[in-house]
């Protein structure tokens, strides 16, 4: 019987596949991981402190920078929180536009996330390039509506910054035409591929009971078989008006997370189709005319959350009656979803670490805040 020595490896902070400046202190026995400790904070900028020094209105563009893949979804969560705190009504059309944007965000995030995941598995960027192509199209739409591709800053308290431009809808419909082909292609590249199955099946299993205990959310939670989607569990905005399904996995491994993400893109497309049907035509309804932007909410606290593509993004706000929040806390999905990383990697090989990390789908801007 041969004894092997344990070896400590630092994966990161500068490493091609840590999705930013992120470090994993890995203890390996041969190639098997016995312990993994995530170390982060390299991108920490004390976002919460910063936000407490700004007014409510000024914080909106900073929420873009949390998870820079899903600026729209972050905007949404923050806007909902402040609206709940102040009591601002949002007009019908604005709600539809918001949901449209957030669902587009979900598609682009999953397209990118799966691409990066496959890239981490060693496929040379093909899937990523396909995902990025669709993402660029969606970003074009975002740009035409909000003026920026990534840092959209599109949502306002009581609506959105401006109405959709005239050419938005035709382009969106064009995009939806491409969507099924794109998703099918992605599925064909990912689903049956033996190498991918080898790399993802049975890897990084997070059992259903533990998934809840670990507080993970989003596709990671659903991949473990818990059908918990905030859009269904506690419908916010106008999500109770749409028909869509919640995909869940059965085992809770990387493969299940891939499948769940693919299916979520299909469901998002379904929602967008319903939005296109139902979108009210009323001109100027994109903004509540009575809503003030420089809000001065009454004293109180509020917790509002949305289902971003990565999971539950919550804002806890305490107002002291001034224009600046007394406490502003972000419950970041990427950050909390990292909690089980160390335990999930234990017992697998070094090469599986990056795959498991990729399947969680983190953005360091949100993790470190």
């Amino acid at each position, binding site marked *: 019987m041969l004894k092997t020595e344990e070896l400590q490896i630092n994966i990161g902070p500068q490493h091609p596949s840590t999705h930013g400046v992120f470090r994993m202190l890995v203890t390996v026995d041969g190639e098997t991981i016995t312990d993994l*400790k995530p170390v*982060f*904070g390299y991108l*920490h900028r*004390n976002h*919460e*402190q910063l936000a407490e*020094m700004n007014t409510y209105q000024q914080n909106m563009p900073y929420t873009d920078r949390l998870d820079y893949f899903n600026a729209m979804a972050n905007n949404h969560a923050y806007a909902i929180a402040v609206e709940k705190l102040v009591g601002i009504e949002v007009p019908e059309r604005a709600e539809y536009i918001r949901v449209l944007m957030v669902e587009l965000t979900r598609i682009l995030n999953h397209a990118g996330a799966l691409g990066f995941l496959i890239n981490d598995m060693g496929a040379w960027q093909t899937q990523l390039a396909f995902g990025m192509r669709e993402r660029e199209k969606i970003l074009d739409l975002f740009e035409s509506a909000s003026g920026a591709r990534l840092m959209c800053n599109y949502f306002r308290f009581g609506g959105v910054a401006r109405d959709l431009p005239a050419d938005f809808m035709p382009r969106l419909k064009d995009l939806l035409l491409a969507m099924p082909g794109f998703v099918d292609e992605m599925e064909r590249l990912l689903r049956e591929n033996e190498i991918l199955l080898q790399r993802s099946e049975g890897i990084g299993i997070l059992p259903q009971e*533990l998934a*809840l*205990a*670990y*507080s*993970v*959310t989003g596709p990671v939670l659903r991949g473990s078989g*818990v059908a*918990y989607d905030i859009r*269904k*569990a*506690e419908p916010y905005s106008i999500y109770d008006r749409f028909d869509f399904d919640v995909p869940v996995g059965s085992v809770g491994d990387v493969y299940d997370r891939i499948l769940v993400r693919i299916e979520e893109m299909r469901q998002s497309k379904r929602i967008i189709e319903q939005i296109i049907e139902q979108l009210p035509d009323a001109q100027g309804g994109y903004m509540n005319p009575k809503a003030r932007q420089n809000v001065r909410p009454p*004293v*109180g*606290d509020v*917790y509002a*959350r949305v289902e971003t593509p990565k999971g*539950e993004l*919550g804002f*806890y706000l*305490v107002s*002291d*009656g*001034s224009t600046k929040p*007394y*406490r502003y*806390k972000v*419950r970041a999905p990427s*950050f*909390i979803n*990292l*909690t*089980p990383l160390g*335990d999930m990697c234990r017992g697998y090989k070094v090469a599986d670490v990056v795959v498991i990390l990729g399947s969680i789908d983190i953005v360091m801007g949100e993790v*470190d*805040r």
Partner: protein
Amino acid sequence: MPNLRAEDLRALLGRDLPGLLQEAYPLHLAPPPAHGHAPPPFTTADALVDADRIIEAALYLRDTLGYAFLSDICVVDYLADGVFELVYRFYHVEGGPSLALKARVPRESPQVPSLTPHWPGANFHEREAFDLYGITFVGHPFLRRIYMWDEFEGFPMRRDFPKQGDKYIGEEE
């Protein structure tokens, strides 16, 4: 879809776990201004529980009420009253609004029992609270700074942490 409200939770806690619930005295959000009228104090409808018995309350929420999903642990620094308030937020797996448990600890010796042994998901929440507010979670397996480097002194999210420079307000050179 369960739909318990904060009042219901208070009633339930009062019934099943006597002595756990505390009276939620109003908190002052700012020191009284020199002139003008002070902002109204902050009152909460959520259940305020004894910080030392937070595990008991949380387990009650999980095992009896089914609120198994610990979504968030948030710390608020009420400097004027000298307390930290911890907000534990629980959700039911079948959906519905949240239930919050609040616990107040004095700023001088902030100590709370850790939920991590029961909810591994509380791990990072508690480490974050330790890092930014300096709250000690008794029983946490790995209570280390999470964002700041280990050698960092002070707790940057406390309200008396200087916004500029590197000293606490009021601390003499």
